[in-house]
């Protein structure tokens, strides 16, 4: 068996003490950096590349891969504890994770995100080992029409994220897409709603919007009423997920891994999109979708599993085709070239030691990540014991610093500020934030690919109906839109389960 030989080769490299050490250092540094606001996997890897100069190329790559995985995980901690999604892929983790923390279940949320990350990461590495070539072929068959259909499918899940009022959810979705049109038109190159500011040419920064809506909005609303009231539940439950949490999440992990791995392997989609899609799919699969957004552990699990599964998926095009599929991977590729390697279709045959060494060390990295992070949970949740008046200024500093670092521009600070006010008003008037963010991520990609597809076909819409993958995706969209109507018809009269809404202010 070729594979087994290769895996043995890989482990023999990854388990060398020096590689193991750097893998550990990378994972540790990545986790800590991921916790910092505004410094996600992209910046984290970029900042630490100079440290790896002078190392052996395999060791250096192992360390960078460790940083990548670690940073992907680290972002979830602040999302759960203080509602600050430090990078875009962990936005969906904040939605349910923070509510869990307020209910005294921070330990379970952090534990589930650690374990979900581990399983998602590990399974996707196994996927990378076993089925990279066919997945790469699938990724290649995605042209602009396919991306358009995929993004449309993602947007169709808006109807699922909507919450109580469909109009409100959809309205926020359309508003998010409108905000997404700020910047350069993706095909014509005309400036739209930029007021001539160059820092708005690339659009409105997603992380700043998310931190404003979630973190600043939350702080403002908590300033209402009495300051003495506790924001977080007094007693802090178990540090680990309970048995019923496990049962709730077993299929979530499988589904989210598949979604994360597949979407992660598509160039241009990435971890953020896969977290959104996995979350929406989970809400759709759930028997009690109204729990989502109010502290459903499946929500945390889906988002974290998927964004970590996407890290393995993202390496598929890099290692098999020599093509970077995301910004982080592009940086990794730049680093590989600085080490003197040439990532390309021949890498696998010319340097099997490198390929398999890195893949297996990612596997080990995920194990280390788990060992490292489970004991840390006890430390992290101590943050919740800090009196809220002390926490407020620190969170404010944290998000301002994050907004500034992520774009290096004052515009991002003001975007964060404005969306903080918007987030406050949205809470007051009972509007959901998740659809706005989802649309802000997917809208621009959808618009760009729609226009590119039309340019390819010279304006003919037939292009969306003559390609097998688009047909399948469009059929899925039709089903997902019509399904609720069909279900409603069959179960007429049967009222949906009403769960008590926890912690209504």
């Amino acid at each position: 068996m070729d594979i087994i030989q290769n895996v043995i080769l890989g482990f023999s490299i990854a388990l060398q003490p020096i590689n193991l050490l750097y893998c550990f250092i990378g994972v540790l540094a990545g986790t800590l950096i991921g916790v910092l606001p505004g410094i996600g996997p992209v910046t984290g890897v970029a900042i630490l590349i100079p440290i790896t100069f002078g190392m052996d190329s395999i060791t250096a790559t192992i360390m960078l891969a460790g940083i990548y995985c670690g940073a992907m995980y680290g972002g979830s901690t602040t999302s759960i504890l203080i509602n600050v999604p430090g990078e875009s892929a962990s936005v969906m983790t904040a939605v349910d994770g923070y509510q869990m923390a307020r209910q005294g279940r921070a330990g379970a949320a952090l534990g589930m995100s650690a374990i979900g990350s581990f399983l998602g990461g590990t399974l996707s590495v196994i996927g990378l080992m076993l089925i990279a070539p066919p997945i790469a072929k699938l990724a290649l068959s995605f042209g602009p029409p396919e991306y358009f259909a995929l993004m449309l499918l993602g947007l169709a899940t808006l109807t699922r994220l909507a919450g109580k009022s469909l109009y409100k959810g959809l309205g926020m979705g359309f508003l998010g897409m409108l905000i997404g049109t700020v910047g350069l038109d993706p095909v014509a190159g005309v400036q739209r709603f930029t007021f001539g500011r160059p820092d708005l040419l690339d659009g409105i920064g997603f992380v700043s919007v998310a931190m404003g809506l979630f973190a600043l909005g939350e702080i403002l609303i908590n300033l209402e009423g009495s300051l003495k009231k506790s924001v977080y539940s007094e007693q802090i439950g178990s540090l680990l997920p309970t048995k019923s949490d496990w049962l709730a999440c077993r299929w979530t992990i499988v589904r989210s891994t598949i979604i994360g791995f597949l979407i992660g392997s598509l160039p241009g989609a990435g971890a953020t999109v896969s977290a959104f899609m996995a979350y929406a799919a989970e809400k759709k699969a759930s028997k009690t979708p109204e729990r989502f957004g109010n502290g459903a552990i499946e929500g945390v699990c889906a988002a974290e599993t998927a964004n970590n599964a996407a890290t393995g998926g993202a390496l598929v095009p890099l290692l098999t085709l020599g093509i970077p599929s995301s910004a982080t991977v592009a940086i990794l590729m730049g680093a590989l070239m600085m080490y003197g390697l040439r990532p390309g279709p021949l890498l696998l045959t010319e340097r099997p030691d490198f390929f398999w060494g890195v893949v297996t060390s990612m596997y080990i990295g995920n194990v280390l990540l788990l060992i490292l992070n489970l004991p840390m949970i006890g430390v992290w949740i101590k943050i919740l014991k800090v009196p809220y008046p002390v926490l407020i200024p620190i969170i404010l500093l944290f998000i301002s610093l994050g907004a500034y670092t992520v774009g290096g521009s004052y515009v991002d600070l003001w975007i964060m500020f404005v969306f903080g006010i918007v987030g406050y008003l949205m809470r007051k008037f009972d509007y959901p934030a998740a659809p706005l963010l989802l649309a802000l991520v997917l809208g621009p990609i959808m618009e760009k690919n729609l226009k590119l597809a039309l340019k390819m076909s010279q304006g003919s819409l037939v292009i969306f109906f003559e390609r097998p993958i688009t047909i399948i995706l469009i059929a899925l969209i039709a089903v997902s839109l019509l399904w609720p109507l069909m279900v409603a018809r069959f179960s007429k009269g049967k009222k949906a389960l009403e769960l008590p809404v926890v912690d209504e202010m």
Partner: protein
Amino acid sequence: MKKRLAVRNVVCMVLLLGAISLLSHATALTGYAAGAKFPAKPILFVVPYAPGGGTDIMVRVIDKVGTQLKVLPQPLVIENKSGGSGVVGKSYAKGKPADGYTITCADDSSTVVDLFGNSPWPYNDFTYIAKLNRDYQMIVVRMDSPFKALKDLVTAAKAKANTVKVAGTGVSQIDVLHIAMFEKAAGVKFNYIGFDSGGQVMTNLLGGHVEAAIANPGEAYEQIRAGKVRSLGVSSEKRLGFDSAVFKDIPTWKEAGVNVSLSQWRGVAGPKGMAKEPQDWLINALKKITDSKEWKEQYLDKFLQVGVFVTGDDMKKEAEEEYAAYKTIMEGAGLLKKK
């Protein structure tokens, strides 16, 4: 009582930390003799693009080689400020004093962004320091493509305008102009599909969603070597001298019957109005760095760039000539915005 003690301890620790960090700054500054000439403190290099990109790598190699060779007394402070095709970072650098302690990247992107009307300042509003390298463009197709030579592609495009889909990177960017120049020279009209990144261009080419693509040698090299992609021609004056197994047989566009040659370039510039002394010091430092064999090994050869060294006023003159040439092309192709 106990609590107060704890607070005092914490305050002490913080003061100690502060003292250490101030001290480390002080020692950093003593690397420069007091009252010495330029540079008396570390130089800030504003990279107007995201980390990991071509320009970022160039600057990091300058920093690495410069420190190794002791040409730079202290490492550069590298700040990435990306956005608006480089406009954001360059605007930021231009806002700093022109004392030589802030420099940024000069490239043809400034020209292109200005021409497309997305720049708040004129493209040549800099103190030009040095142009360091050139990069060329290739027209590439899939290995199983029916287009065996450049003239096949041209014939197909001539037969029916706007039908041959050619992928490139970006809208309102250099690839659009270069395609327009190619079209003008060959007398054809392609259907240009602009993607966000070189990675997407290559996936769409390999996936068969477009017929051809315009790509730098560095972007296509591995794909050519693996036999996935074929290059129909390169935009340089003469054939490229990199890996001869790959590049020896790639004709120039001129040889293949399309009479145009073009290139991209990168270099270093500072805010307008820099004094002679820092400018000369920087030119001299960059000369030493780019003359070294480390530069050739770690940057030019690895990333398939052709080294050049044009400085100050000559560089400005070249940029102005290029601007005029591009402007004519854009007028001809109907891309220029009416002002």
